[in-house]
C-alpha cells in the first residue's frame, strides 16, 4: 500500500488491470516461483545499481534458508511456487466494469463512493481529476524540501540518501517474509522530511485514488529528520479487490530526534488474501512514532507494527483495530522495544470477531537493561459478537530493568443481551443496536483517523454488521 508518483500510479494500475486479464499480454512477466534468475531479472528490469542487486540476492538466500514461522497462524496453504513475483506494468487492456464482482460494486455503493472513483478502485478507469490536485500537492511539498516519490524513483533520484537508510530498520535477516520482500520488492513510497519541516496535511489522504495501486511486495521508506512532522495514510476503506492472494510488505520508518511520525493503515483486502507485513520505526531521542493500524479485510493478516525506542525520551504508540468475519483471521498487535532511558509507550488493541471470525492480539513489550524510568501500558479489548467467534491474546513481556512502570490489561466481552435489549427498547432494530455497540467499541480508534476516513470507517462497520443478527 503505497504512495506513488503519478507515472507509478498509472503503472501500478495497469499491473492491477493486468491481474484480471490474460497474463500473456504483459510486457514482462517473471515465471511462477522464485529463483536467483527471477530476482536478477527483476533488478535488471528496474535498472538498479549493483548494490541493490546484491541486496536482493542476499535476501533471497536468507529467505530460502529460513524456516516457515511456526509460532503463529497456519501458513501451509500458501503456494509459494505458484506466485508470480514480478509483473512489469503493461499498457495492456484492462478488465471491464462488468467483470468486477457484484459484491464489490455493492460495497462501493454502500460506502457512497462516486462512480469514477469506484472504477478507479476496481482498476478499470485510469484517468481521474485527482491528478491536478496531486501536482499541486507535489509542488507544495517540494517547496518545503519534502521528497515524496515512488520507492523506485527514490533509489534513482536520491541514491545516497536512499542507501544510507534502506534496510537499516528491517534488515533482510529480520524474518522470512521481510527477506522475501527484500528479494522481490516493487512499488511503494520514499519520503524524506527535512529538519524542522512540519507537513501540514496527511499525505495520503489527498491522493486516495492513487492508493488503490497496492503492490504485492511493496516497500516504503520514510525518514523524518530532526524536529520534523508527518502523517502518512495508506489504504482505503473501500475493499481492495485483487486476485493476487499474497501480500507481503515492508515499511521502514526513521524518526530522528524530536520528530513526530504518524502512520495510519486501513487494510481492507478482499478475503482471499494472505497479508503478512513487517512495519517498524526506529525512534530517536524525544521522537514520537504513532501507528494507527486497522485491519478489516484479508483471509489472514499477520501484522505487528513496531517501535524501537533507541533515544532517551522517545515515545511510541500503537493503536490496533481488527475486525474478523467468517473465514478471516486477524493476527495483529504491536511490538515496542525500550532501549533507552525514560522512553514511553502505549499499545491499545481493539478487536471484533463475528460469524466464526478469529482475532488474536500478539504483542511484545521489551525493556532493556539501562532503559530506566521507562513507562509502558498495554490495553487489549476484544468483543465477540457470537459464540462461534474467537479471540486470543498472546502478550509477551520481557523486562530487564527494575526501575520501570508497566501496565497490562486485557478484556474479552461478548456483545451483551442487555445492551442490545436496552438499545432496542429505544426503537433500534437488532442490527442497528449491534452496530451501535460495535461502533462505540472502536470509537477511541476511529476518533484518531482523518475525518473522511472516520466517516467511511463507520459506514464500513455498518456494512460489516449487515445480516449479522438473526
Amino acid at each position, binding site marked *: 500500500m503505497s504512495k506513488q508518483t503519478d507515472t507509478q500510479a498509472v503503472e501500478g494500475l495497469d499491473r492491477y488491470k493486468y491481474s484480471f486479464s490474460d497474463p500473456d499480454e504483459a510486457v514482462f512477466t517473471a515465471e511462477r516461483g522464485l529463483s536467483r534468475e527471477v530476482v536478477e531479472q527483476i533488478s535488471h528490469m528496474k535498472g538498479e545499481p549493483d548494490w541493490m542487486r546484491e541486496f536482493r540476492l542476499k535476501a533471497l538466500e536468507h529467505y530460502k534458508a529460513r524456516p516457515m514461522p511456526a509460532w503463529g497462524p497456519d501458513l501451509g496453504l500458501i503456494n509459494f511456487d505458484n506466485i508470480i513475483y514480478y509483473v512489469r506494468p503493461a499498457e495492456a487492456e484492462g478488465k471491464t466494469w462488468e467483470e468486477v464482482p457484484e459484491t464489490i460494486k455493492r460495497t462501493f455503493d454502500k460506502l457512497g463512493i462516486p462512480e469514477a472513483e469506484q472504477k478507479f478502485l476496481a482498476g478499470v478507469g485510469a484517468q481521474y481529476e485527482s491528478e491536478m490536485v496531486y501536482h499541486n500537492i507535489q509542488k507544495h511539498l517540494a517547496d518545503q524540501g519534502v521528497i515524496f516519490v515512488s520507492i523506485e524513483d527514490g533509489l534513482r533520484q536520491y541514491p545516497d540518501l536512499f542507501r544510507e537508510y534502506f534496510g537499516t530498520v528491517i534488515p533482510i535477516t529480520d524474518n522470512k517474509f521481510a527477506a522475501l520482500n527484500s528479494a522481490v520488492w516493487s512499488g511503494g513510497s520514499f519520503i524524506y522530511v527535512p529538519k524542522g519541516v512540519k507537513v501540514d496535511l496527511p499525505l495520503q489522504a489527498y491522493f486516495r485514488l492513487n492508493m488503490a495501486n497496492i503492490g504485492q511486495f511493496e516497500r516504503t521508506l520514510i525518514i523524518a529528520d530532526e524536529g520534523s512532522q508527518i502523517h502518512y495514510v495508506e489504504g482505503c476503506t473501500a475493499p481492495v479487490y485483487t486476485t493476487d492472494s499474497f501480500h507481503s510488505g515492508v515499511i521502514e520508518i526513521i524518526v530522528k530526534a524530536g520528530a513526530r511520525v504518524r502512520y495510519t493503515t486501513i487494510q481492507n483486502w478482499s478475503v482471499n488474501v494472505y497479508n503478512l507485513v513487517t512495519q517498524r520505526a526506529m525512534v530517536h531521542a524525544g521522537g514520537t512514532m504513532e501507528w494507527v493500524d486497522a485491519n478489516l479485510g484479508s483471509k489472514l493478516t499477520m501484522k505487528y507494527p513496531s517501535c524501537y525506542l533507541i533515544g532517551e525520551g522517545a515515545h511510541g504508540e500503537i493503536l490496533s483495530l481488527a475486525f474478523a468475519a467468517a473465514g478471516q483471521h486477524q493476527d495483529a498487535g504491536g511490538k515496542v522495544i525500550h532501549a533507552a532511558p525514560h522512553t514511553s509507550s502505549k499499545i491499545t488493541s481493539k478487536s471484533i470477531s463475528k460469524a466464526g471470525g478469529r482475532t488474536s492480539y500478539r504483542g511484545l513489550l521489551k525493556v532493556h537493561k539501562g532503559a530506566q524510568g521507562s513507562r509502558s501500558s498495554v490495553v487489549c479489548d476484544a468483543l465477540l459478537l457470537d459464540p462461534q467467534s474467537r479471540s486470543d491474546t498472546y502478550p509477551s513481556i520481557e523486562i530487564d530493568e527494575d526501575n520501570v512502570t508497566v501496565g497490562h490489561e486485557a478484556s474479552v466481552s461478548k456483545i451483551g*443481551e442487555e445492551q442490545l*435489549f436496552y438499545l*432496542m427498547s*429505544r*426503537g*433500534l432494530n*437488532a442490527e442497528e443496536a449491534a452496530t*451501535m*455497540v460495535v461502533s*462505540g467499541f472502536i470509537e477511541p480508534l476511529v476518533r484518531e483517523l482523518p475525518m473522511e476516513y472516520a466517516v467511511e470507517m463507520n459506514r464500513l462497520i455498518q456494512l460489516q454488521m449487515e445480516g449479522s443478527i438473526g
Partner: protein
Amino acid sequence: MAATLEVRGLHAAIDGKGILKGVDLTVDKGQVHALMGPNGTGKSTLANVLMGHPAYTVTAGEILLEGVNLVEIEPDARARLGLFLAFQYPVAIPGLSVANFLRAAINAKRRGLNPEDKGVAVPEFRKLLKEKMDLLQMPHEFAGRYLNEGFSGGEKKRAEILQLATLDPRMAVLDETDSGLDIDALRIVAGGVNALAGPGLGVLIITHYQRILKYIQPHVVHIMLDGRIVESGGAELAEHLEEHGYDWLREKNPNGVVAEA
C-alpha cells in the same frame, strides 16, 4: 376507545419459573398509575415483559398498547409503537454518545412511521435536545458523554427521563426511577415526568416507596404480590401502605403465598 395500556391475564416465566401469574392492569389515556409491592413480587419482571425482554417468556395473556397486542412483537417495534421503559439499571454503551444515540433512536422511530423519512435535521435535533436537557436541569455537555458510562446513579436516572422526554412515547413505564436519587434529583426527575404527563402520555410508576408519589400524583395505585395485582385504589392506598406495610395484604391474599410454597 382503547386504553393506553391494557394488560390482561398476563403470565410470564423465566428459565421455566413462573413469575407473573395473571396480571390485569389498565392505564387509561392520560393517567398516571403507580405499582407498588415488596421485593421479588414481579414488578420489575412486569416492566421487562411489557418491553419484551428476551429472557422472559409470556405463557398466557395479552399486552395491549392502544389496542395493539404486543406479545409477539420485538422490543424495537414496541418502542416504535410508543412504549417506553425507563430502566432500573440502564447499561453503559461505551463510545456511543448520548446525542448520537438519541438521534439514531428518533430516526428509527421516524422511519418506523415513514420508511422514506430522511431523519431529523441536525439543527432541529440540537434544539430539541437542549430544550429537554434544560427541562431536566442537565448541563449541555451531557449530550457528548458516552451513554451511561461512568454516570452516577442519579445521572443514569436523569438520562432515562431525558430519553423519555426526547422520544415522545404514548406510554412510559418507570422502573424504580426514584431509587438512588437524592431529594433534589428526585424533585427534578419528578418535575420532568409531570411536565411530560398529560393527555398524550400514560405513565406507570413502579416503586418501593411512597416518596416519589408526593411529587407525582397518581390517579391509581396498584399493589402487586406474588405475581399478581392484589389491590388497587386511589392515592390514599400508598399512604395506607406507608403506615401499615404489606402484611395486611398477605393475610387478605393467602392463596398466592400458598401457591408459591
